[in-house]
C-alpha cells in the first residue's frame, strides 16, 4: 500500500529534534499499550504483517500527528474486532463509561 506510512525520501517533514535522555515510556498508558502487543499476539490469530497493515490504514492526518503508541492502539482495536475477540459496541460502551467516570 502506497500510504502515508511510506515515508522514505519524503521532503518537508522538518527537523528530527531528538529528545535528550528520553524515558522508555512517556506515559503510563504507553506501557500498557506496549505490553498489549505480545499480550494479544499470543491469542489474536493475526500476524505481525497484519498488525502493520492495520496501522497503515489509519487516517493519514491522524497517523502523522498521533504519538507512536496511538498507532498500536488503533491497530489493536481494529484487529481484535475483526478477529471477533471484542465488538465495536463493547469497546465504545466501555470507553463512554470510563469517560463519564473520569469527569
Amino acid at each position, binding site marked *: *500500500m*502506497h500510504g502515508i506510512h*511510506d515515508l522514505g525520501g519524503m521532503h518537508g517533514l522538518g527537523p528530527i529534534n531528538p529528545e535528550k535522555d528520553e524515558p522508555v515510556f512517556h506515559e503510563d498508558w504507553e506501557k500498557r499499550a506496549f505490553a498489549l502487543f*505480545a499480550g494479544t499476539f499470543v491469542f489474536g490469530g493475526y*500476524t*505481525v*504483517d*497484519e498488525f*502493520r*497493515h492495520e496501522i497503515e490504514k489509519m487516517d493519514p492526518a491522524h497517523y502523522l500527528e498521533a504519538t507512536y503508541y496511538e498507532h498500536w492502539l488503533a491497530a489493536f482495536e481494529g484487529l481484535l474486532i475483526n478477529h471477533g475477540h471484542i465488538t465495536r459496541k463493547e469497546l465504545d460502551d466501555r470507553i463512554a463509561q470510563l469517560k463519564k467516570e473520569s469527569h
Partner: protein
Amino acid sequence: MLLTPDLVPTIVATGASARVNEHVAPRFRVGDRVRVRNHNPTTHTRLPGYLRGKIGIIEQDYGVFAFPDTHAHGLGEKPQHCYSVRFTAREVWGSLASDRDTLRVDVFDDYMDLD
C-alpha cells in the same frame, strides 16, 4: 494462549522468527543486476515506493522468509528469498544526491526481476 508472567521470559528470549524452514530455489544470485518491479498494490507490501523501477545489485541472500504481502492478508506464507540489495543514492534520489552514498534495502524475490 494466555500470556502469564512466567511465560514472559521465554517469549522475550525466543521471539518469533519469520524464517521459513523450507527449501525454495532463489531467483537471484549475489552479483546479479536487478530491476525492482513496478509493484504497487493497495494491500500490504514491504516494498517502499521510492524503490519501484530502480536498478540495484544483489549483495547478500538472507534465506527464506514468509512473504509479508500475502502473510498480512491470511493468504499464507508464500516463502521466498529475501536479499540485501544495493542501490546508489543517485539511482534512487536523482542527480542532486551524493555520488558516493548508497542504500541497502531488504527485497523479496517477488519484488524484482533480472535486469
